[in-house]
């Protein structure tokens, strides 16, 4: 699409089983900031089944309008059904900017939609700014595993589309008293027209925190020595209400499944706190975690490259240091309550 009359900043909210993902609120906060600068409105798109009640949350985070498409066929995310809803809305209203979450489903949807609209898309953005002269969106994103940063423009085509990395942008305080216009739209495709079917959903094991959403991550590496080391990692993670990560070495040794791997060929994370235990800090691991706000590293080898990126480094045997930390944390929390 190429439309110089396009206006408005749009956010495609992300929800699973009616729970809106945190990145959606971060996107709404960012959209509000951009829209105020552009003197434009913020619109949110909420797609799902029985999600009407969730629209209020978008208003609380600054949306002026919420386009709601609530339909049985939209119970589970499917590229084709979600893409059609969003495509129809975008063609009708021509937003200037469209943000989606840089989660697996968000990136899947954004890529399909951008291809269909023949517009530009920047993946996994960590910062957005407006060019003061052209009002074009300057989209900052990491490439080469974060070793290079790129500023991308989409000078002609509209909307300017980006996916936004979770935890990268500041979330405003919600205001529950805010309201806006709720606009219901019908689902575009009937079940018979769809070429994909979700046969089974396998939710994460009970209580397990997703790495990409986590505020705190405790990771283990080769220095654990064996798979039992992850019991200790798990204990520290539980004490901090954190997710468990791992280095490629630990995954390749078969100590923990691949879904826990942090790094260039695993997950890229940016939590508030990343605790690296027995991880030397190979380039490909650093690529996946070095945008964390605070890094704490525990390693026997004082020469380990991980200390080069850590805010706080502890030189020592993790099997001695971690139990002390767990006890100290438990004592601190007990004193609070």
């Amino acid at each position: 699409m190429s439309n110089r009359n396009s206006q408005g900043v749009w956010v495609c909210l992300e929800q699973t089983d009616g729970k809106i993902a945190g990145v959606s609120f971060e996107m709404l906060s960012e959209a509000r900031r951009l829209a105020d600068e552009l003197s434009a409105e913020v619109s949110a798109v909420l797609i799902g089944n029985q999600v009407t009640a969730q629209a209020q949350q978008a208003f609380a985070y600054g949306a002026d309008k919420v386009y709601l498409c609530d339909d049985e066929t939209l119970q589970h995310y499917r590229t084709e059904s979600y893409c059609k809803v969003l495509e129809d809305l975008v063609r009708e209203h021509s937003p200037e900017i469209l943000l989606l979450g840089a989660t697996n489903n968000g990136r899947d949807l954004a890529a399909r939609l951008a291809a269909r609209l023949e517009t530009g898309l920047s993946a996994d953005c960590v910062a957005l700014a407006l060019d003061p002269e052209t009002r074009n969106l300057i989209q900052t994103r990491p490439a080469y595993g974060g070793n290079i940063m790129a500023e991308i423009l989409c000078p002609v085509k509209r909307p300017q589309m980006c996916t936004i990395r979770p935890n990268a942008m500041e979330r405003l305080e919600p205001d529950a008293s805010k309201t806006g216009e709720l606009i219901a739209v019908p689902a575009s495709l009937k079940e018979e027209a769809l070429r994909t079917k979700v046969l089974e959903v396998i939710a994460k094991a009970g209580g397990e925190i997703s790495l990409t959403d986590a505020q705190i991550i405790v990771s283990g590496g080769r220095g654990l020595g064996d798979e039992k080391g992850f019991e200790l990692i798990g204990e520290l993670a539980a004490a901090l209400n954190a997710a468990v990560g791992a280095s490629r070495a630990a995954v390749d040794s078969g100590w923990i499944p691949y879904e826990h791997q942090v790094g260039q060929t695993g997950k890229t994370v940016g939590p508030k706190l990343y605790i690296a235990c027995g991880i030397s800090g190979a380039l490909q691991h650093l690529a996946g975690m070095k945008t964390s706000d605070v890094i704490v590293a525990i390693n026997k080898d004082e020469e380990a490259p991980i200390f080069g990126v850590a805010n706080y480094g502890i030189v020592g045997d993790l099997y001695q240091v971690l139990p002390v930390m767990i006890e100290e944390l438990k004592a601190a929390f007990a004193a609070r309550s």
Partner: protein
Amino acid sequence: MNIMVCIKQVPDNAVTPKLDPVTHRVVKEGVEMMVSPFDQNAMEAALRLAETYGGEVSVITMGDESSKGALKLGLAMGAERAYLVCDPALEGSDSWATSYVLANAIKSIGEFDLILCGKQAIDGDTAQVGAGIAEQLDISQLSYVNEIREVTADYITAKRVSQAGEEVVEAKLPALLTCEKSLNEPRYPTLKRTRLANRTEIPVLDCAAIGVEAGKTGEGGSPTAIHKLYTPAPRQSGEVFAGEAKETGKIAVQKILELKII
């Protein structure tokens, strides 16, 4: 069953990429190259499917003459055919333009039941070309696949990873899958196949051969433009504590509590 695998040659990820101080582009000359890791998983998945269900595996890439190196790995692993899409007009294509070119190239080559890609290439990290190709070919896409369960005459059933967990999805063929690392362990090429790969003629397809419109490729045909590339400021190392675990463990917890996130 005919399968096309899309692969990309990328700079080796064991080396920190450097920017050319004059052009501000990533330096590729003299840098060791590799086939993007997830593309190797796609290659392996295709070979296993062909072994189970019969059919032929082809491999394609877009790039310069040196990208034949990547295609040779595909051939050495077991692909029957390899295609290089190469034309000066493709220089600077973004993910949209690349999808447009690859989709047209695939269309010009023949009919495929499945197209497999890695979940993303580890240079651009966009994860957009697979979906773009699927859109251009008007077929279903299943992204982030970590298990292929079954393929019948008309359908594929696969498990994909979403942020909330995993889901088993059935898609009508033809379909495009993007592959996770946990899908499989890519095989090493045998010596025999490597020799064969070195002797195999790799056809080079230019824009005219695949019928892409001028103006829809390269830097000019790309919706996005690179405004600036830069190396992020290196993280500064902070305080380091050594000594008795009783002391250092305590300090670590103090520092964590001072962050006031818990």
